[in-house]
Every structure is written in structure tokens, then in C-alpha cells.
């Protein structure tokens, strides 16, 4: 089964069982900046770069699904990643990264990543294999 995505992440718990991994050396923001660069190179943005709660913005780890490279940068992906970086910076301006609970964040980030991969696979025409 071919894989049409890459996991851009700094989460040490994310490994090959999730698919092809592009490891980012750095924090949450560094992951977002890497995703931004890929989007401007023409890659498809598959999962939304930020989570659905303020809490998850304080996580040291973040994983984002990025797709294959197209012929041009899509406006909606560019706007989404730029908006995400802006939101991240504004929302965490006064906060410290929550390193105390780093392991828990790593685990939840992994769970959310699996959720995103399963969601993505729903629309793929290949044989669906639920990620365990």
C-alpha cells in the first residue's frame, strides 16, 4: 500500500509504524515552521497544524500530516499554516512550555496523530487498515 503522506514531528514517540516520519529538531513552533516551508514548496497540508484546545498549544510536541508535492502552493494551505503560526505565537506569548507533563503530551499527540491518519485513510481508495 502506497503512502501519500509524511508525518512532520518532534515527538519522540512517533515512529515508523505511523509511516514515513520527518523529524524536526526543535519545539512546537519549529514543527509549524517546517510545515510552512513544505507548504510553500507546494506540499499538500493534510491535517490542521494546531489542536482543538488551548491546552494542546502548551505541548512540547506536535505532529502534522503533510502530503505530496503539487505544482503550486495552494492558498488555503498557506493561509491555514500562517494562521496557525500566528495563533500559536499569540496564545503562548506569556506561557511556559509544559515540560513537566511532556510524556503525557507525547502520548496524546500520538493518539491524535493516529486519529488524523485514520481520518485521512477514510477517503483513500486503498485498502483501509486501522492504525492500532
Amino acid at each position, binding site marked *: 500500500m502506497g503512502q501519500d503522506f509524511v508525518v512532520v514531528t518532534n515527538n519522540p514517540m512517533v515512529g515508523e509504524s505511523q509511516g514515513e516520519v520527518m523529524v524536526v529538531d526543535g519545539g512546537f513552533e519549529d514543527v509549524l515552521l517546517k510545515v510552512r516551508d513544505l507548504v510553500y514548496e507546494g506540499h499538500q497540508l493534510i491535517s*490542521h497544524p494546531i*489542536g482543538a*484546545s488551548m491546552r*494542546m498549544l502548551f505541548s512540547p510536541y506536535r505532529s502534522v500530516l503533510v502530503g505530496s508535492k503539487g505544482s503550486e502552493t495552494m492558498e488555503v494551505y498557506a493561509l*491555514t499554516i500562517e494562521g496557525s503560526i500566528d495563533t500559536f505565537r499569540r496564545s503562548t506569548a506569556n506561557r511556559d512550555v*509544559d515540560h*513537566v*507533563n511532556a510524556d503525557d503530551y507525547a502520548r*496524546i499527540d500520538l493518539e491524535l496523530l493516529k486519529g488524523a491518519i485514520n481520518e485521512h485513510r477514510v477517503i483513500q481508495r486503498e485498502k483501509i487498515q486501522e492504525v492500532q
Partner: protein
Amino acid sequence: MNLELRKIEIKDVVFGEETGVKDGVLTVCKQDIIDGLKEDVNVKSIKVDIAKPGEKTRIIPVKDVIQPRIKVEGKGNGFPGVTSEMVQLGSGKVNVLDGVAVVTIGDIVGFQEGVIDMWGEGAKWTPFSKTLNIVVDIEPVEGLDPHTHEATVRVAGLRAAELIGKAGKDAQASAVEKYEMGDIFTEASKYPDLPKVAYVEMLISQGLLHDGYIYGVNSGKILPTLIHPNEELDGAVISGNCVAACDKITTYQHQNNSAILDLYNRHGKDINFVGVILTPELTTLEGKFRTCDYTAKLCQTLGVDGVIVSEEGYGNPDSDLLMICKRLEDSGIKTVLITDECSGWDGMSQPLADTTPEAVAVVSTGNVSHVVELEPADRVIGSAEAIATLAGGWEGCLQEDGSMVCELNAVIGATSEIGYHNLTVELY
């Protein structure tokens, strides 16, 4: 469908030999609750406490809040599809222990937040400082995987509400609320001149700790779906959201969904309240596009004139909220959005993650970064570590005298995006 919510006014809660209601006092037999919940082999131990309005008590970290009830006529006691057998909800008579809330605590991960202060400054910011809270601390057995851990705590909380709800079986109701709404065509023929309004309720549906359930079905697996408002008022929708304290829709808030109640109030008077559409907030962009198109299409199919859209969470769901708004407005349907905002400590930052010019009518339920000062509590029900997490947000959060500065996003129900609470934002 015809649903009667019979409110039994409860003025006090005490522990006692037998669970029951007499003269407005709810007696809870602690051991019965503990025994009942320990029937689940995954539950290791249960602690039950009572926290009353005005006491210098702090409850943290709150997982869910559930209203104790019992169905006295009709099918579907408990939470069909979750704690009891599958049954169609939305009709019958339900005795409600009004003024009482079951609050579950016990974290699955260390960073869970959610504080309820029963007194002082903190009490103003949560609606659950006004309820008599029966706090249930659920400790699961060791070695459970996170999904099972969460499910265990979730179900135990619902079961606790069921067990306590039984106390209301023969009690006298002091107020009866009737919710009656027929099919769409019948209602339209009754009120041909009233504008048709639907309520789109967005549910966080992104994975562990970020879930919602409809008749037990995880909302991450559904397409946007039409549901009768009575069903939600009768317990069809429950919360699996364990983060986002300030704007998560607790099960209690589903059972008492204020947007549904306020629309129902006007049904047949100013508006024809057509129904509720539950919309999952998905993680992938494709998923969001699909969901938003589908939601707008359902509204168009219903032929509505106006829609209220509420959100759950902050961050990526802002995209869905605005996409749904744009699609509706472009098709001529008028919208009002209910959302919270993040404008920084000083209120000077741009409030939303996304913007769209079509969002001309928005109710803001508060700035999640608004800072409040919490005095030290005499009693803390819950975990000290959670306090550390709450206080560890930034340097100087915890003061020497034990008082804490914390953002609204850690307070349960503070900025409820179904409009349950009464915060707003003004521009100066």
C-alpha cells in the same frame, strides 16, 4: 416527540444510610455509590465528597459534570448506548434533581485542567459554583491503556449520576417543563409565518480526550446529522472532552443545552425551531471541508432562514466555524456564531485564529486568556499535581500566600460556547 422534565428542587445534599429525597434534601448513601461503580472490574477505588456553594472548596481537575435524573415514564433510563441498552430518547417524563451536579475528577493525563471554586472570585467564573456538587473521584486499576482508562472514568461518572438520580423516583416536582415538537411539516403548518431556525452544534471529535458521543457512537465517525432537540435534552449526547476546561460541553451542559433551551423558548412565538444538527470537528482539512459542506447542505435542505452555530474548543475548530458561516451566508441563510476568543492577557491581540468577512453576527463568550486571581482554598478535592499544572503556566503564577493567578481557560464552563454562561467581551 414529547418530553417532560420534572424539576425536583434540591436545597441540600447530605450523606446518609439510604439514597433518597425528602423535603428538598437529597441523601446519598456513599457505600451504595461505591459498590455500584466498583461493579466495573476496571475501577479500583472510588471516593465521594460533597462541595456546596459558598464553601472555601476547590475541585480540580474536573473531567465531566453530569446531572442526576431518572426517567419515570417512558423508555431510556441512564444513557442509552453507553450505560444502558439502546433506546430511542426524546419522549417521556424525567425526574431531575435540580440544583445538583455529579462532578467527576481523576485525570487520565497529568496536564488535564478544570477547576471549580465554590466561593470567592473563582466562583463567579464557573456556573458550577452554584450547584450542590457530589464529587466522585474515580481511580482505575493499573495498567489500563489510555482509551480504556478514559472510558472507565467516563462511564463511571455517568453511572454515578444514574445511581444518584434514582433518589428522585418518587419525589415531588416543583416545576415541570414541557418540550413538545412534532415533525417538520406539522410544525411548519402550525407556524407558517415564522422564520425557520436550526441550531448547528459543533462537537470536538479529534481523538483521545477530545471526543463526543451520540447514543454511544463516537462523533469522529459520523457525518453531520440531524437530531431532535428533545433527544439531546434527554441524554443522547455525552462528553468525552477532557481538555479545554473553559469551553468543553460537559454532559450536564448537553442535558441542559442553553442554545436548545433558548431556541425552544421562542418556538411558536418568534421562530419555528426546526431542529439540531450535530457537526463533528475533524482534524484533517479534507474532513473539515466535507463536514462544513454537508452541514450547510443539511441547513439548505431543511429550508431554514437562520442558523445559530456554536463551537467547542479553540484553535483548529475556528476554521470549521467560519467555513460553515461562509457557506450558509453565501446561500442566503443568516447566521449567528457563538464562540470564545483569545485576545491575550491585556485583551489587545486579534481575537480569532481565522477571519471571514461573512461573520457579521458573533456572540463572544469571553477571552480565554483573561487572567483571574484565585484565593487559597481551605479544602481541595482532587490532586495537588493538578494545582501545580494550573499554577505552572508561567513564572509568578503561584503566590507565596497560596493564591494563584490563572487564565480563564482553566475554569470549567467559563467561556462556554453554547452560551451557557453569561460572559461577554466589550471593546474599550
